[in-house]
């Protein structure tokens, strides 16, 4: 299985390449990619030199152009497609049907991957993208169990890629407007979720209150570690219970599922985290490289405990285990 690693900066790209990535994915420094955070991402020139560096080490570069193009501003997304192709990207990761249509027509030889943001969750939807745009791979949404993934792999006419580590969307990706309901900014339109620009912390009566836009997302008592107020991982109340009603502040770690994912026939494993620093990337990539070698050789290797690196310092196998639902 290929190991697909995040790079939010040229330094992270080099770290991922050095740590054993088979491919690195990154995006341009604008709203065309779903990690449109300040200080992140690549200029066109940085992408060109990043691709040259990766290719010199036998590593592929996948360029994420995976937000939904703003009406009336399609040129920005089309230019991103042209620039990525011109820079020698090994594949483009695209979510928007309008952008896919452009890329497939304008660059018929360019390898296209369906972004997780496209929410292609079953063979019929995937088949649509294969037939319509000739896509070669689909990144599966984090809503599927391993058994469902295996069934999809058997049936579809393209490769599959799944997330194995990092941030975990609880809602189906590309179909969530929680962030824009509170802040006006969404993953689909702006490439951000629960953006830092709308986060406020304040102390009141010995509690630390985290707010997103006009809404309280969590409260922490003294000494309790305070997480980032991602909406779906906040604490809320109902008449029945109060707490993490949608998801605990956990990250995805599917290390334990690697043998099953390989058996399912998955082509590639993806690590989330283009917003993460190079030290994180290096350690996580190296760990998964070791796990994959262990899987190939059948020889157990020493475990690097990655839990301390994760959001909320706790992990879940998410939807890969059916009981998560």
């Amino acid at each position, binding site marked *: 299985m290929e190991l697909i690693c995040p790079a939010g900066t040229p330094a992270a790209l080099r770290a991922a390449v050095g740590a054993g990535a088979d491919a690195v994915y990154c995006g341009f420094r604008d709203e065309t990619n779903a990690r449109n955070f300040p200080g992140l991402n690549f200029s066109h020139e940085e992408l060109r030199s990043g691709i040259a560096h990766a290719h010199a080490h036998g590593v592929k570069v996948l360029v994420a152009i995976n937000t939904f193009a703003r009406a009336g501003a399609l040129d920005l997304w089309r230019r991103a497609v042209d620039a990525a192709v011109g820079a020698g990207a090994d594949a483009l990761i695209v979510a928007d049907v309008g952008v896919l249509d452009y890329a497939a027509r304008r660059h018929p030889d360019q390898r296209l991957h369906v972004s997780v943001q496209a929410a292609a969750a079953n063979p019929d*939807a995937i088949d649509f993208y294969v037939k319509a745009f000739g896509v070669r791979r689909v990144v599966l949404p984090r809503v599927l169990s391993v058994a469902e993934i295996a069934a999809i792999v058997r049936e579809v006419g393209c490769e599959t890629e799944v997330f194995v580590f990092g941030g975990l969307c609880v809602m*189906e990706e590309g179909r969530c407007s929680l962030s824009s*309901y509170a*802040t006006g900014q969404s993953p689909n339109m702006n490439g951000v979720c629960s953006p830092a620009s709308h986060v406020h912390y304040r102390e009141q009566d010995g509690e630390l209150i985290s707010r997103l836009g006009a809404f309280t997302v*969590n409260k922490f008592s003294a000494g309790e570690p305070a997480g980032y107020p991602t909406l779906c991982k906040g604490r809320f*109340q109902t008449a029945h219970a109060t707490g993490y009603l949608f998801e605990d502040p956990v990250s995805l770690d599917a290390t334990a599922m690697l043998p099953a994912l390989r058996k399912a026939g998955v082509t590639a494993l993806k690590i989330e985290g283009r917003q993460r620093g190079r030290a994180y990337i290096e350690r996580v990539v190296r760990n998964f490289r070791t796990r994959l070698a262990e899987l190939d050789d059948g020889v157990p290797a020493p475990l690097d405990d990655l839990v301390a690196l994760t959001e909320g310092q706790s992990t879940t196998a998410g939807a890969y285990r059916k009981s998560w639902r």
Partner: protein
Amino acid sequence: MQLTLGPVLYNWQPGQWRDFYFRIAEEAPVDVVAIGEVVCSKRSPFFAGHMPAVIERLAACGKQVVLGSLILVSLQRERRQMAELAANTDFMVEANDLSCLGALADRPHAIGPFVNVYNEAAAAYFAGRGARRICLPPELPLDSIRTIATALCDVTTEVFAFGRLPLAISARCYHARLHKLSKDNCRFICEQDPDGLPVATLDGEPFLAMNGVQTMSHACANLLGEAGALAAAGVRALRLSPQQCDMVAVARIFRDVIDGSRTYEDGMRQLSRVYPDVPFANGFVHGEPGAAFIADKAGASLRARRPQAGGAMR
């Protein structure tokens, strides 16, 4: 301007569901009725028996019936259901994800608000494959709506104009999780909340509403005040999404205000009476947080025009 009644998104009792549609058929001034379970496939068997009679009544009363597909299709059983739905040639199918688009290719169909049509290129792509109606995602601002509607004059562009906003879909059932049940053995607990289960912040401020695997807004979308601006932007239908309130009255208020036979101010007063205790929201269309209600913008285009008998925006 047409009015479309969106599908019931909640788990209503089958008898209530049937009677709701019978009354809509007879009394509501809506042009199109989208029908069918789009949120959770486990719910559909309960009212499947009523479906033929409801469709027949709606059609007999002159409503265009549109059959909605599931938002999230992952089980084999769901795929078979969607294939059967797409094979129906008597009524237009409204695709709420791309799963049944292959089967609908080149046949006239509708695209629902759960398909990501954010720009004129995506809209044109779907129109080129047979989409005749496109209900845009609720989070789109007016500029985007205008660009898409203007570019696609052959397609009926529709906007989500009333009802709790569907904000997210998940594989996980939050109703079941809240009640410490597994999704497979959920006991259909979501039927206890036919208008959504209120979710408040830790300050006690109402925020969201759970609806099984779907997360809705607490606030109720209300674009009554934007109807004129939307019509001017090329929008040809407004979607009213069923809540536990008098939806016939809601449809009449929208119809009257659009036709100019009722003032915007009176329409808003009436809507607040018909669906009390839930704040209205119009933020998305103004490019603001979706929960916001921008009062000074709402109604601007309508206040400028005095009530009149004719249907200027029709």
